[in-house]
């Protein structure tokens, strides 16, 4: 059974049909890239899947269960981890604390009034910090992290509930070109070691073709193509939509 199944999903803002009848599925352990030009509706689709927006129509199923219209904190309990296009972290906390808060929530202890959080979930937090390569930053404030490290922190936070699906909105945006590969290698590690499926949006075609098992192309709220990286590379319609950026990327390769 697929981890995520989206059926005929739609969402409009006023007159703008940001997502217009999108259907696709993500299988367990699969890495799926969602690409498309600016304003194609990628982030809106993500926001519908993780419950931040209520879709106007269509269904979303997680491992067979209907989660359409549920709030983000409920959807998280269905095993969805999310990273944001503009990183969202707890800036008044250290790297370790950011993860400890998430672990407490995963443990159902968010409303606990007992022992101080600083002393709890420490070992698990450190393991995750090691995994994303932030060991030297453990006690740094999230507010002082460089952008690339913030993305890593978000990934670690998103992994705290052992998700079956990671939603990553532009995981490498804003990173130096040479750091992008490292970040995506990390995602591959999560997939390999923890069996998580990944749905990510990305503008860097190297990243897409190097790290996706399958690619879905969105344009003006519609899926215009879907297939393996090789198929997508050869697709004429995709080339038309990506005219300019895509060709430039190709030329650079």
């Amino acid at each position, binding site marked *: 059974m697929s981890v995520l199944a989206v059926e005929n999903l739609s969402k409009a803002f006023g007159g703008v049909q940001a997502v217009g009848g999108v259907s696709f599925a993500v299988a367990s352990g699969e890495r799926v890239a969602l690409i498309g030009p600016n304003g194609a509706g990628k982030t809106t689709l993500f926001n519908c899947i993780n419950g*931040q927006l209520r879709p106007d129509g269509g269904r979303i199923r997680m491992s067979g269960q209907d989660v359409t219209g549920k709030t983000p*904190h409920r959807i998280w309990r269905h095993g969805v981890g999310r990273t944001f296009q503009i990183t*969202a972290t707890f*800036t*008044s906390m250290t790297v370790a604390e950011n993860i400890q808060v998430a672990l407490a*929530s*995963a443990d159902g202890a968010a*409303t606990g009034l007992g022992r*101080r959080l*600083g002393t709890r979930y420490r070992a698990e937090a450190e393991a995750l910090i090691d995994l994303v390569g932030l060991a030297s930053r453990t006690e740094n404030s999230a507010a002082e992290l460089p952008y690339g490290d913030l993305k890593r922190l978000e990934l670690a936070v998103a992994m705290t509930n052992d998700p079956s699906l990671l939603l990553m909105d532009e995981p490498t945006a804003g990173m130096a070109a040479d750091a992008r590969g490292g970040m995506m290698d990390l995602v591959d590690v999560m997939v390999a070691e923890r069996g998580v499926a990944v749905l990510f949006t990305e503008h860097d075609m190297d990243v897409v073709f190097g790290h996706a098992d399958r690619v879905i192309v969105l344009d003006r709220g519609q899926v215009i193509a879907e297939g393996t990286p090789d198929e997508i590379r050869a697709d004429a319609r995709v080339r038309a939509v990506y005219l300019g950026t895509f060709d430039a990327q190709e030329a650079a390769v």
Partner: protein
Amino acid sequence: MSFIVVQAITGLASAASLFLIAVGLSIVFGVTRVVNFAHGSLYMLGAYLAFSFVAAFGESFLGYLAAILLAAIVVGGVGAVMETSLLRRIYRAPELFQLLATFGVVLVVQDLTRLIWGADDLFAPRMPGLDGAIQFLGHAVPQYDLFLIAVAFVVLGALWLLFRHTRFGVLVRAATEDREMVAALGIDQRWLFTGAFILGAALAGLGGALQIPRQAASLSMDLNIIVDAFVVVVVGGMGSIMGAFVAAVLISELLAFGVVIFPEITLVLIFMVMAVTLVLKPSGLFGRPEFTMAEDRRNPDPPLRAGDGLSRIFWWFLLVAGVAAPLVIGDFAVVVLTEIAILALFAASLHFLLWGGGLITFGHAAYFGLGAYGSGLAVFHLSLGMAPALLLAPLAGAAGALLFGWFCVRLSGIYMAMLTLAFAQMAWSAAFQWVGFTGGDNGILGVWPSAWASDPVVFYYLAFVVCAAVIWGLRHTVFSPFGYTLRATRDSALRAAAIGVDVTRHRWLAFTLAGAAAGVAGGFFAFAKGSVFPDVLFVSTSVDGLVMVLLGGLQSLAGPILGAIVFTEIETELTRLTDLWQLFLGLLIIVLVVVLPHGLVGLSALVRRRSS
């Protein structure tokens, strides 16, 4: 039937003045995004100025009219001074600071008005030519009421023309709808802001000046009108002129008929309208929703370090000083110290919400006051002893917070501040109007401690131990998973929700917890004073708490304690020396917001940084 029509006309006349003040508030908010608490002060100034001008040259109809218009113009000038000297400095400050700074102006204007015109209510003569009544279906309708209604329509029409057909008006509308765009067009925003503020101030002045034939000029008219104006602006939609008009009529008619049908709860009714509107349509009837997806924390707080050297010393020092002080100080000082312990808890519970949860509340007095009334009423109606009455205090505070909080935590920023304020005013008006139960203005007397605690020193130790324990509990909560999660919702509600936190519920719980803690303080306050008056629920109590928190420093857990100590000491000393305490407090608030936004704790950090 005819009675209904006449009552409706009375309502419309009130709506006219409410519209004049609310529309100015709304225009200023639309352009500057500042909710100007001092807008009611401009209204009051308009009334006092008009009183003086009428006394000088208001014998004829035209003289009276000139007096009213001149008052409005002078108030517009006062607005220009206020905008250029103060508001301009706080446009970028957090909403809480803006509200507080403009409340500082309220206090300053109030004391200055008292200095100039005296504390007594001033009755102006009726307007010549409009001092009669016309007979309408057997009822007398004051001519002046009809005049007021006409004025409101004239102003509405004039504003409409201004906003459609002048460059200034078009820019004001553009700024209200999209600030970035105006900035991008390279328009001199300063000029626009000052202009909008002068317009709003003059309208408030006009509203106040027009009141004097109907109602005496008094020192309480500023806060009375501003709270109603907030309700109108929120219900109508911030920044909307039509909204202000419709909501003013709605609220005024509700009041006019409410007085007839349920005289005891008219005010409560109004705030209910506001609460329901905000929950169902947060942007008001005519307002447009603002998309603020991006989260903005420009100055992230440093991570909390539990018990680092300096703060540990501070807490131990407080504990030792609190225990030892009664042994060395006099009786009066013990009474002051008791008050400090109580207010420190009040401030700490407020700080828990403000800093710990980023929940901007302007009505924390509600829960303090409910605690006080909970204890007081238990003594008065149930003849309970001190101990059981004190146990009721946190329950009363928590129950109020549970109820009000359910609405408030669904909002954010300025809307949350206004709704918390509205609920507190609602509690205040209930205490004030429900004379049979609460004693109204006469309060509840005879709330004295039990015999075993009647000695001031014994009562002090009791208050100290309980308040210190609750403060410690709040402090511990900040470090507990609950507190961290609360702070997480403050740092990024988006991220908190994405890691499984039910943000609304968590905030609601925090609100209730803080309400219970404030209730404890309120209960002790009742027994410390031996009485409970509606004042404990009034906005000034909330502001006192906010000043304590800011004075100490918002970003430190010790801040509210330090703030409560310094604030209470200054107030005690100053009220002995002078009757200009409000003036001083107002200036203190303005200085705090503009010069020292990090409070005393921040001051020490500043000095440390400078010297190293």
